[in-house]
C-alpha cells in the first residue's frame, strides 16, 4: 500500500484494468485519443485533463474519439450498453449534460423498468464537476442533484484516488447507468492506492473522521473543506464526525442517521446550489426520521443560488470554505 498515485492515475488504472479484464468495455468521448488536428496517438491528449492518456496505445479502436455532439455519442453509448457492451462515455463537463437528457433520463434510466426488468443498461458516463478552476458559469457547476432526482440512475462522486479507482471499477461492473462525477480540483491529489483491482460497493458512506459533537455530511471536493474545518475546530475541543457519502444514489442513510443519533447536530455541506440539493435532501431525511435526536437546528453550507462567477475573487467567496463550515458548526453548538 506504500504506493501513492493521483486521482487522475487511479482513474486511468481502473479503466486500464477493466479493459484488460472485460473485452466488452470500451471508452468514447471528445478528444480522449487525440485533439482536433493532432497527429493521433503521438500527440494524443488523453482526454481534456489526461485521464485516458496511454490507453489508445494499448487498446486501439476500443477508444473512440467522437464528434462534438454529446447527444449523438451518449445515445450511442446507451444503445451499446442495452445491446450487451460496457461503454464508458466521457462527457467532459457535467454542464453540457443538458443536450442529452432524453438519452439519460428517458432512455437509459427507464429501460429496466419499462422492459419489465429484462433490460440492463450498464453504461458509465464520466464527467467533470465543480468550481475553483476559474472556468466560469458554464464549466463549473456541480449539478449532481439533477441526476439524484431521477430513479434508475446511480450517481457517484469520489473524493480521493483510492475511492476513485474502486468506485469506477464498480461502476463499470454495475448493470445500471452510472453518472460518475470527477471534481476538477481533485485530479492531482495523491493517496495510497493498491495496484490490484478492487471494487467499492455502492451505498457505503465513508466516515473519514470520527467525532462526538457534530456530524458533517458531504461529498466530493467538500470532504476536504470539511476536514479542514474539523481540524480547526478540534483545537477548540469541538469534535466533528465527517461523512463522505461517496455515492449519492444509492445513498447510505444508515450511516448518516446513526451518526446524527450520536451527535445530535448536523451540518450538510454541498458545493451545489442550495435549493433541492443533496444538503436539503439529507436535512429533510434526518428531520423526518430522527427529529427528536436533534439538539439544534440543521445547518446547510452550500454555494449561493446564483451562477458560478468567473472573477477569481468572487468565485473564492462563492464556494463553501472551511471557515464557512466552521461557522455553521459553531452555530449548531451554540444551542
Amino acid at each position, binding site marked *: 500500500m*506504500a504506493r501513492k498515485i493521483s486521482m487522475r492515475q487511479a482513474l486511468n488504472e481502473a479503466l486500464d484494468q477493466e479493459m484488460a479484464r472485460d473485452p466488452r468495455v470500451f471508452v468514447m468521448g471528445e478528444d480522449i485519443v487525440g485533439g482536433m488536428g493532432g497527429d493521433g496517438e503521438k500527440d494524443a491528449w488523453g482526454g481534456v485533463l489526461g485521464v485516458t492518456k496511454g490507453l489508445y496505445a494499448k487498446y486501439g479502436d476500443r477508444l473512440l474519439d467522437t464528434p462534438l455532439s454529446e447527444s449523438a455519442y451518449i445515445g450511442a453509448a446507451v444503445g451499446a450498453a442495452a445491446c450487451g457492451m460496457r461503454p464508458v462515455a466521457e462527457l467532459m463537463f457535467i454542464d453540457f449534460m443538458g443536450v442529452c437528457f432524453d438519452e439519460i433520463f428517458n432512455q437509459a434510466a427507464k429501460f429496466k423498468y419499462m422492459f419489465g426488468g429484462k433490460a440492463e443498461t450498464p453504461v458509465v458516463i464520466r464527467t467533470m464537476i465543480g468550481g475553483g478552476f476559474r472556468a466560469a458559469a458554464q464549466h463549473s457547476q456541480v449539478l449532481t442533484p439533477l441526476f439524484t432526482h431521477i430513479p434508475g440512475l446511480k450517481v457517484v462522486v469520489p473524493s480521493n484516488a483510492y475511492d476513485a479507482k474502486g468506485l469506477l471499477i464498480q461502476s463499470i461492473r454495475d448493470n445500471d447507468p452510472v453518472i460518475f462525477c470527477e471534481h476538477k480540483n481533485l485530479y492531482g491529489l495523491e493517496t495510497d492506492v493498491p495496484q*490490484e483491482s*478492487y*471494487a467499492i*460497493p455502492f451505498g*457505503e458512506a465513508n466516515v473519514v473522521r470520527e467525532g462526538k459533537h457534530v456530524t458533517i455530511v458531504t461529498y466530493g471536493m467538500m470532504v476536504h473543506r470539511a476536514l479542514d474545518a474539523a481540524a480547526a475546530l478540534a483545537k477548540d475541543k469541538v469534535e466533528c464526525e465527517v461523512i463522505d457519502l461517496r455515492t449519492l444514489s444509492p445513498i447510505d442513510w444508515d450511516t448518516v442517521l*446513526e451518526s446524527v443519533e450520536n451527535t445530535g447536530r448536523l451540518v450538510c455541506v454541498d458545493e451545489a446550489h442550495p435549493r433541492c440539493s443533496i444538503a436539503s435532501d439529507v436535512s429533510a431525511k434526518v428531520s423526518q426520521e430522527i427529529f427528536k435526536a436533534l439538539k439544534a437546528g440543521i445547518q446547510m453550507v452550500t454555494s449561493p443560488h446564483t451562477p458560478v462567477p468567473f472573477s477569481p475573487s468572487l468565485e473564492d467567496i462563492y464556494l463553501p470554505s472551511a471557515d464557512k463550515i466552521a461557522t455553521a458548526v459553531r452555530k449548531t453548538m451554540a444551542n
Partner: protein
Amino acid sequence: MSEKRIIPIVMPKWGLSMAEGKLASWLMKDGDSVKAGDQLLEVETDKIAGAVEASEGGVLRRRIGQEDTIYPIKTLIGVVADADVPDADIDAFVGSYVVPAAEEGEEEEAGPRYEFAGTAAGRLRYIKRGSGDNTVLLIHGFGGDLDNWLFNADALAEGATVYALDLPGHGQSTKKVDEPTVAGLAKAVLSFMDTVKIDKAHLVGHSMGGAIAIEVARQAKPRVKSVTLISSAGLGPDINIDYIDGFVTSASRRDLKPVLENLFADSGLVSRQMVDDLLKYKRLDGVGDALTALKNGVFAGGRQAALLADALAASGVPALVIWGAEDKIVPAAHATAAKGAKVEIIEGAGHMVQMEQAGRVNGLIKVMIGS
C-alpha cells in the same frame, strides 16, 4: 561511562505505516523499579493500542512524555537507569538526546518496505527482521496478514532472524489459493521457505496458522525446530463458524465491526482504521473467492477439518501452546489436546492474544526459541 546504564524509552514504531503515536497513560511513576518486560506506558495509534515495555531493568528516572499527547516515533519519552546514576548524567543524556529517526527512517523509506517472493504457490509478500542463524517464521490465521505480528516481529528480532509472510489469498500475496486446505497452505509455507532459503525454523502460528505449523512439521519434520501454537486451530473440532461466516460476508464497516469485536477480550481495540484496512483487503478482486474456498476447505460444515493433535505428538517437535483465556473464536479448552506441550493460558486476552498481551507472548516465544 555511565551512559551505558541509561536506557532511553522512545515512542515505538509498530508496523511500517506508523509515524506517530499518542502517549495515552503512564503505567509507572518516577522512581519505580522496573524489570525487563514490565509495562511502562500505554500508547495508542490509529490502528491499535498497546503497552510499551522496558527492554532492560532499572529505575524509571524520568517521565518526559505527557499523557494524552502525540509524539513522532522514536521521540524520547522517558528514561530508565540504575538508581546510582547521578541526576546530572540523566539531565545531560536527555539534553543531548538526538532522535535517530532521520537517517534510519530515510533508509527505510528508500529501501523495500515489504518484500515479495515468487514461490511455487504464487507471489507471496513477507517481511524479514533481525539477523543470526536462529530463524523464526510467523504464520497468521484465516483472514489475517503479516501485520497481525505488529507487536511481535521486532521484539523477536532482537535475538533472531524473523520472517512473517502473507499466506496465499491474504494480505498482499497472490489471491489464488491452489489447495484451500491446511495441508495445501502448509505446502505453500514450505515453498516459501525454499524460495527465501530458510532451511530450518521455529514456526509460530496463530489460529489457522497454528494448524499450518503442525502440518509443516508433519510434512517436513527436519525443517522445524519447534512450533508455537497461539489460539491455534488443529487441536479440536470446534470453531466459531458465525465469526468465519461474518468475516467472509461483511462488506461494510457497520457489518464488519461487530464481527471483529469477537477477536479481542477488549472490544474497544477494534479501531476505525483496523476495520477500514480489512475492508480494503476484502474488496480486492479474488479475496471473496479465496476466503470462501478456505472456509469450505478448512471449516467444512462448521467444524475444523484438520485435527492434528496426534500428528503433533507423533512428530516429537517441541511445542508451546499459548491461548487467550477469553478466546471467542477457538475455545481455549482445545489447549489440553496438545500432549507433551507446554501450555500457557493468558488471562485478559482473547483470540488475538499476541496483540493484546504482546509482552507476555513475546517473552514465552523468546524462551521457546532460546534467544
